[in-house]
């Protein structure tokens, strides 16, 4: 007789039918709802979990500049010396949470205020309004660019 196969212990249905049905429905609803949230929020750049592969927004070309003020003097930052290139690309894609984390980091390191400015062009190469994120370090207040293009 063949030795018992461990996986056979679990080869029957893993959950009761009614539980399985509930898990299935919940899983499907979750998958339908999560991408929909993209269309309801004001941050059109954050396309994660929305299945917007190769969307027109993803194809915008942006150049990123960061400036910080210390002792009342504003100087440009050499981003490549501070963070990995991949993060600079994220900043260029207007990933808000990355921009906020970077601004916070510079404030923690003694800046008075920090700005990130993205100059973007759409897929036709037309320039778009600049996207500017500013943190005033004393108050910790961050000003995000206004939503546009909707």
């Amino acid at each position, binding site marked *: 007789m*063949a*030795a*018992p*196969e*461990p*996986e*056979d*212990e*679990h*080869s*029957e*249905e*893993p*959950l*009761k*039918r*009614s539980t*399985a*049905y509930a*898990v*299935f429905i919940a*899983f*499907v609803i979750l*998958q*339908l709802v999560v*991408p929909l949230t993209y269309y309801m929020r004001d941050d059109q750049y954050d396309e*994660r*979990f*929305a*299945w*917007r*592969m*190769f*969307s*027109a927004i993803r*194809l915008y070309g942006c150049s990123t500049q960061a400036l910080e003020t210390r002792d009342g003097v504003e100087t440009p930052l050499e981003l*490549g*010396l*501070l*963070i*990995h*290139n*991949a*993060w600079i690309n*994220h900043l260029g894609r207007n*990933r808000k*949470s*990355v921009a906020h*984390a*970077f601004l916070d*980091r510079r404030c923690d390191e003694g800046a008075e205020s920090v700005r990130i400015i993205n100059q973007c062009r*759409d*897929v*036709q190469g037309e320039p778009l309004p600049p996207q500017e994120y500013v943190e005033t370090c004393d108050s910790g207040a961050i000003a995000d660019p206004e939503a546009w293009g909707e």
Partner: protein
Amino acid sequence: MSKRKKRRRSAKASAPESAVSPTPAKREAPPLNEAHGVLARFVFGPVSTARTFLLLRGTLLLLAFDCWIDLVPHGGRYGIGGFNVAHFSVLDALLPTPTAGTYVGSLIFTGLLAFAMAFRPWRPGLALLCASYTYGWAMSMLDSYQHHYLISLLLFSFVFFPLTSAQRLSALKDEHSTASRVGGAFFLWGSYEVLAGLVDLPTPLRALFTDDTLLGGARASMLLFGFIGPLLLRREREAGAPSEDRVLRPAWGYVSITVTCAIVYFYTAVTKLSPDWRNGDALSRIGRSEAFDALKARALEGMGPFDAVDAATFWSVMAKGAIAVQLVSAAAFLLASTQDRKGRSWLAALALAPLSFHVGAETMGLSIGWFSYYMLAVVVVLFAPRSAIEAAAAAIAPAMAKASDALAKALTGPRQYVALAVGALITAVLMMEVDLPGALGAAFYIGAVLFFVGVFAHRRRTQRGPLGVAFGAAAIFAFISLTATSVRYDYYRFVGGDHRRRGEYAEALNAYEKANRYLVTPYCVYEGESRKLECYREESTAEREAARRGTGHFVRRNDRERQAQEMRDRVARDGA
């Protein structure tokens, strides 16, 4: 007759199709409330376990190699400057900033787990795999590939898959003659040949045939025999045969995968309805490849019965075509799980939509990692005719069952704990040798997993010894993948490049020297000055390949020696 009675009667009429067990009292879970109706029949409809068997194991194998070969090389960028943003803020709050070791270690661990689960699927292991893979991408936005999120969804569904054993599937042997099973093996091989050929991966036939016409003929013959062989050579299945009971079963985890794919394609199509996509502007930016250029050139001149079009029309038509193909793909995936029901075999034809889309994506050279490979493999398993997919399973299941039986017999009693310990030891020894951060950590966690497997086996009085063998085998394949390919070269050259950019020359020199030490294919064939095509271990092989490709192709050594020398000079200058 009331509608309700009619529904009930039609449900009974379809019973032989869905309730496949001759011993329903033992196997079948209680039926759902009638009110669930069509949806419940869709979710719990019969699926050939040959599909679930091949889909689970094939995807996990692909995942293991994806983790080791495609993802590990990018680990060097994690933790640089102590900066990180996770996909979910809770991870930033709870966990320390990930480092290269965290990322590489978690990916090696995930690959080892995926490989072991492909051979010895175990539900807690599959749940852990889903969690570790998800942590792998969720720990940082540095990994923002959307298809990694998709794979997490697939792994979640795998947790609820029927874990059909090879022994159970061996019943298929009774209805597939040896010739039919050979046809099944050819189907698997032919599918790999055709799909891998389309995306320019190495294949056994590619190595055998240098002539493209002969190669195409061989691939087509193999696939044709794989399709037709099982159809013609299969023995007639008797009604209610035991094999039917073993093969057709409800598999809601599988249905969840088909629905997940349908949702993804649907939303992807919806995204492309924006004007920038519909007018072709977006596609014209990403569709820059030789194949697309050639197609565009022909369209501009006029193709067959079609008049010549201008470039804008070409891109607009292609973009709208992509939207249509994705919508058809969504419908195809939604229906795919019903293919094994009577009269639904025509659904196999719908595979053309997703196949054409992913082959097109690969032809365009989009940077989407191994996504197309996953989807091409998934499409083959989901849509192949039942006879072909079952013949393929019948070709490999008996050998797997035999090996599995032998292992289970050999590793009884205390010997199973020895097997688990040896699995952990092999993993530790091999991971110590790969010289990548986090590799030893991955081995430690595998050891912890095997320890808990042993405790579990002891408490439940079950046999888990073969899992030790599966992890040992996984470690050997991980070691080969990490050391015999360009993984370590790529990892260290990326690290070197980053240090160099930031003026950390000593660290850059160290990384470049390691990159050169681990270079396995130094001789590359170039087209023109800068377009690298393929790299080889032997210069003579590269020269032969360049000659085969014709004028304009030549061989150049591709390493980081120049950069290393530059760093040596800078370090010496700074030291002086």
